[in-house]
C-alpha cells in the first residue's frame, strides 16, 4: 500500500502507531528521512493525524494516513470535516476484531458500516477493499485518484490478515495514470475553508436549509459519478449452482476453493454499493449468502439493495478458515458443503 501511495504521488503522511498499520507509519518515516520532498509527522494521537492530513491537503500535498479500528473511530470527525470542506485525501483502515481494543492482531470486517456512516451527518463516501497484495498496490493508486476526482476522503479498507500477507507481486505490470491536484493550495487566494455549512464562496450559511441541500446533493452526485468509474468486483460464476456467495477481502480469498461448488461474488468497491451490478447478477440465483467477518454488516446492505432476504454467515473472533466458513454455510443453508 505504501508503494502504491508513492506511485500515486503521495508526499505527506501523518499517523500514529497501531496494529496492523504501524508498518506503514515506519515506511513513511524512513521515506521522509531519505526524501526531503516527502513530509512526515508522527502525531500525538489519531485525531491529530486525521486533522493534519486535512491541513496538508489544503496546503497542496497528496496526503494519507493509516490506522485500524479504534484509531479509525477517533478519526471520524475529521473524515466528516473532509467531506464538508471537500478535501482529497486517503485513509487506510486495517480492520481488526473489536469493539474497543479488541484483538489487535486478528482480522475482522467489523468496520464496514463505520466506513460508510462513522462520522456524524450525511455524506457519501467512496470505499475500496482489495483482496490481494497486488490489489493493495493497485487500489491505493485508485483511491488517490478517486480522492482527487471527488474532492473527498477515500477510505481504503484492509484487515489484519491482508495486512500481514506477503505475496509475489510484479509491480511493473500494474500501471495506472495518476490524477493531478487541481485546486490551488493555501497561500494563493482569499478563500475560506470551513467546517460550517457554507456557500460556494466559503461563507458560513448556518441558517440556510437550501444551501445545505445544494451542497449535499452536489457532493452526492459528484461522488456517485466518480465511483461509477470504478465499479470493481470479481465474479466467478457457476452454472451448476443456485447459490451465490458474497464475500470480500481476506474472507473471499479463504473461501475461494468453494468456487467449484458455488458462484462467488467479491465486491472491491464497497461504497457506494454496487447495487446495479448486484441486482443483475443476483437475479440468476435462488439463494444469496454473505460470508463476512462481522455480524452481518454487508449482508444488511445487500438485502436493502436486492429487496430480498439474504443468508448471513458470520465468522467472528479472528479465526478465518475454510473449515469455519463451510461449517457456517452448512448451518445457514441447511445442507452439506463439500
Amino acid at each position, binding site marked *: 500500500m505504501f508503494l502504491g501511495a508513492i506511485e500515486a504521488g503521495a508526499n505527506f503522511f501523518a499517523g500514529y502507531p497501531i496494529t496492523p498499520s504501524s508498518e506503514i507509519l515506519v515506511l513513511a518515516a524512513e521515506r521522509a528521512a531519505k526524501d526531503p520532498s516527502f513530509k512526515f509527522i508522527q502525531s500525538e494521537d489519531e485525531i491529530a493525524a486525521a486533522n493534519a492530513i486535512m491541513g496538508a491537503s489544503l496546503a497542496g500535498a497528496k496526503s494519507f494516513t493509516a490506522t485500524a479500528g479504534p484509531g479509525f473511530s477517533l478519526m471520524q470527525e475529521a473524515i466528516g470535516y473532509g467531506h464538508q470542506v471537500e478535501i482529497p485525501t486517503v485513509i487506510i483502515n486495517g480492520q481488526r476484531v473489536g469493539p474497543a481494543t479488541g484483538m489487535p492482531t486478528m482480522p475482522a470486517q467489523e468496520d464496514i458500516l463505520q466506513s460508510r456512516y462513522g462520522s456524524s451527518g450525511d455524506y457519501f463516501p467512496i470505499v475500496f477493499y482489495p483482496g490481494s497484495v497486488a490489489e493493495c498496490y493497485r487500489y491505493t493508486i485508485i483511491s488517490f485518484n478517486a480522492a482527487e476526482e471527488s474532492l473527498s476522503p477515500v477510505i481504503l479498507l484492509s484487515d489484519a*490478515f491482508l495486512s500481514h*500477507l506477503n505475496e509475489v507481486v510484479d509491480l511493473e505490470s500494474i500501471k495506472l495514470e495518476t490524477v493531478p491536484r487541481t485546486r490551488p493550495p493555501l497561500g494563493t487566494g482569499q478563500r475560506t475553508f470551513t467546517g460550517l455549512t457554507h456557500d460556494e464562496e466559503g461563507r458560513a450559511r448556518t441558517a440556510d436549509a437550501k444551501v445545505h441541500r445544494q451542497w449535499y446533493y452536489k457532493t452526492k452526485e459528484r461522488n456517485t459519478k466518480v465511483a461509477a468509474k470504478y465499479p470493481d468486483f470479481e465474479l466467478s460464476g457457476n452454472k451448476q449452482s443456485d447459490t451465490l456467495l458474497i464475500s470480500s477481502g*481476506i474472507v473471499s480469498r*479463504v473461501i475461494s476453493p468453494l468456487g467449484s461448488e458455488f458462484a462467488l461474488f467479491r465486491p472491491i468497491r464497497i461504497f457506494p454499493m454496487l447495487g446495479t451490478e448486484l441486482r443483475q447478477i443476483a437475479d440468476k440465483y435462488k439463494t444469496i449468502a454473505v460470508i463476512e467477518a462481522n455480524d452481518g454488516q454487508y449482508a444488511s446492505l445487500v438485502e436493502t439493495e436486492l429487496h430480498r432476504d439474504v443468508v448471513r454467515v458470520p465468522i467472528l473472533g479472528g*479465526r478465518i478458515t475454510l473449515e469455519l466458513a463451510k461449517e457456517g454455510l452448512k448451518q445457514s443453508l441447511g445442507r452439506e458443503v463439500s
Partner: protein
Amino acid sequence: MGKIIVSGEGGQGVRVISHTLATLLANLGYQVSLLYDYDSVVRGAMSVAHLIYEKGAIGNPVIGEADIMLKLSDKAHGLHAIKTVCQTGLCTEEEIDFDELGIENFGKEIFGNMIALGRLMSLAHIDVSEKELAAALPLKYHEENLSAVLFGYHLKEEDLHRGRASRTAQEANFSSDKPGELKPDA
C-alpha cells in the same frame, strides 16, 4: 508445490524462518503466499506463519492441513499437518532439540531456528544451491545463519537422537536428592 506451517512463540524466529523460506521460493520462481497470524504480545505468545508455494496463483492463503509443520512451541492450537517436526517435548513424530543443537554447534539457542529451517527444507525436498540460500537470508549474522541452515539440512538419523540424548544427560545432572546440588558428570 507445498503448504508449510511454522508455529512458535514471539521471539523464536517464526518470521525470520518463514520469510527466508518464502524469499528463497519466490527467487526460484514460485508464486508464494506468506501469512502471519500472531497474538498481541511481543514475547511468549502465539506466532504462526502459513507458507504456500505453487506454480500458479494461490487462492486461500490460510492453511487447513499443511504438508509439513515445524513446531517450536505449543502456543497455537487447531493446526493440522501431514508431517510434524518439532522442538523436543512438543509432539511424538519427529522431535529435535533445536535449542540444544543451536547452543552446541553455534553457541546460542537462537541459532536453533536456522537449524530448524534447514531440517524443514530437507523434509520438504527444497533443494537449492548455497548461493540461492545465501541470497534469501537476512544480512545480520549472515554467515552463522548460513552454516546453521546447512547443518540442519544435512542432519542425519544419528544427529536427530543426539540432541535428545545430551539433554537427558543434562537432566540426570540435576536429579539429586538435595535440591541445588549438582552431581558430577555421569
